[in-house]
């Protein structure tokens, strides 16, 4: 029975997504876009899982770090290269008006020089990691000092602060209109372009997954779980809780920033109003739905959220109701989420508890239990 449930857990969302193909005109690009968004969501849910699921830092401001990566890409990706390829200074000075022209010309330049395009992509990823780590360092200042509720409010407020600044400070990413991002893989065309782009995103997500898995199985991973379960005990054993939390926030934030960079490159534009606080909530939905404290849960949660989201987008064309279907979708997701919190707070894939170093055989275990009960 349990095995059946386990199989169903994975197959149902996948079948669900396959069902959606019936309603699409272009199944290949639909599939590729699902993969692309899945890699972004996977990165976000892994990073929150590392912070909340494994270390117990409730980061309600995930969107801030996600936006950080996207804003850096939007602000720098075309401007870094533009002065070297003879784009006139006039355009760069009035970036708000001319950013479309600048980014198109930079994309065209990438057509002749694929190496420059790829290196800009890599450079942006590195810059994203740096910015994410920096923002994480800033966020760790309140995260170490404040209680969970105050921390949540502070992080939400700082995310909003970043968004308000991006909206109003035009030189950054051209204010409310947003900014165009050049395409680093412009030298490929047609379907191979899409496949290559999505493949790169998927491989980045997959390698991040592997790194985080390795991190969690390392002594560091055991330490962060110990801190989550009993901070005082960990401190008594000589672990520097403050420093560890800071490290985890920096790692988690840089993963979120990578997601932001990928999102900006994938969409080809960055708009500040894309980074509303609801995005952080969606990441929470993914982690709690799938099961906090293990990466499989985070991956499943991201898949489930994506399938619900895509269903709504597909249904939008068929449902005739006098309101926006998106609103209905959010209500359904909210209700589902509250039900999960009430009836299955550990998520669909619960964390395996008591993974001790010495594995006892069931016989021995029952003996130990018996003796323990006797001694009581």
């Amino acid at each position, binding site marked *: 029975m349990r095995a059946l449930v386990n199989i169903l857990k994975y197959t149902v969302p996948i079948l669900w997504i396959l069902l959606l193909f019936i309603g699409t005109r272009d199944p290949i690009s639909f599939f590729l876009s699902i993969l692309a968004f899945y890699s972004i969501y996977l990165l976000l849910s892994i990073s929150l899982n590392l912070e909340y699921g494994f270390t117990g830092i*409730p980061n309600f401001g995930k969107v801030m770090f996600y936006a950080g990566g996207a804003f850096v890409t939007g602000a720098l990706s075309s401007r870094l290269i533009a002065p070297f390829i003879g784009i006139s200074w006039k355009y760069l000075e009035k970036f708000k008006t001319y950013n479309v022209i600048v980014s198109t010309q930079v994309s065209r330049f990438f057509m002749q020089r694929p190496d420059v395009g790829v290196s800009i992509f890599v450079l942006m990823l590195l810059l994203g990691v740096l910015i994410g780590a920096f923002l994480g360092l800033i966020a760790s200042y*309140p995260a170490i000092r404040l209680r969970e509720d105050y921390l*949540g*409010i502070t992080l939400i*407020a700082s995310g909003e602060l970043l968004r308000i600044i991006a909206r109003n400070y035009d030189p950054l990413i051209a204010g409310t209109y947003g900014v165009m991002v050049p395409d680093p893989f412009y030298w490929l065309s047609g379907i191979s372009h899409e496949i290559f782009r999505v493949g790169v995103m998927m491989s980045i997500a997959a390698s991040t997954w592997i790194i985080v898995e390795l991190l969690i199985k390392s002594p560091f991973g055991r330490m962060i779980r110990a801190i989550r379960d009993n901070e005082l005990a960990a401190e008594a054993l000589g672990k520097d809780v403050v420093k560890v939390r800071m490290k985890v926030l920096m790692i988690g934030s840089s993963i979120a920033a990578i997601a932001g960079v990928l999102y900006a490159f994938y969409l080809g534009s960055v708009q500040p109003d894309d980074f509303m606080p609801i995005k952080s*909530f969606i990441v929470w939905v993914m982690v709690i739905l799938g099961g906090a404290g293990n990466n499989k849960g985070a991956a499943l949660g991201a898949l489930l959220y994506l399938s619900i989201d895509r269903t709504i987008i597909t249904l939008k064309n068929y449902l005739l109701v006098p*309101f926006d279907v998106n609103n*209905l979708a959010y209500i359904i997701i*909210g209700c589902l989420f509250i039900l999960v919190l009430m009836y299955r707070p550990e998520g669909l894939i619960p964390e395996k508890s008591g993974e001790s170093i010495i594995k006892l055989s069931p016989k021995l275990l029952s003996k130990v239990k018996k003796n323990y009960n006797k001694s009581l």
Partner: protein
Amino acid sequence: MFSLDVILDALIFSNMISLMAIGLTLTYQTLKVPNFAHGDLVTLGAYAVLFLYKTFNVNPYLALPLAFLIPAFFSLLTYLLIYKPLSDRGASIVVLMIASIAVEIILRNMLHIFADVMRNLQKTYYRSLILREKNILLGGFSIPPVAISSTLTTIFVASIIYLFLTKTKLGVAMRASIENPGLASVLGIDVNKVYSISWFIAGGLAGLAGLFLPYRMPADPEIGWGLLLKVFSASILGGLDNIFGAIAGGYIIGNVEYLGINLLSRPPINLSTSYRPALPLIAMILALLFVPKGITSINMRKIKKWLRRQ
């Protein structure tokens, strides 16, 4: 230094923020969880008033009981159906917080759907709604009536709550069960009932703030989040444990936002006025980092001693 209009704007806004902050503080004290849906209760109140005004042409001030009752019952329902079962199951603060964000999203999207459906039914706008009224002349100044009505309401609410908490049996029971729920229930106080009343009053006060909202800013389903962060700023400045601290925090935040941006947008700094929503957030972050227990925790004696030493 400031024109009368700016001062009145700041006053009206401060009144609204204070009304909301009282409610937020009340609910925070019960379950020790910040209610993220509080901002949307304000929108709910505003939409209740606007619906009556648009459909039956009821004067918004006459719709006051409904503006109080609808959000109050909604708030009570969320407590009874969501927060209480969750906290009975031993959910952590983080889980309660995330549940309240879910409630916020459900309520906001319900309001979106309501606005869309009503627009299609009545063929009028149901978003970005503003109510207008004629200014009245008072001692040579032309003053918008909402400045007077909102101030009176805030004073009335503050005094009623003060009397309720200190002079009535229920109010004393409420304070007792907030202070020490275990001990209070041993002494025969129905803690659950007391908490329900807190949530009811909190929702109602948010609705009252919603009554004044469309006179000053366009009422829209999306407005809740923005308001919420301002209310949090006010409550945190007030210390989250004291209703009068919340009122003081509300006035500080309201004035910081309106008078502050007015000062900052003048020649030496020339900040764009679109940064206005950022000011309360900065005030809150500074308050959290330097006076995390709120302004009521500032020890005046120590400051006086320090000043004397200088």
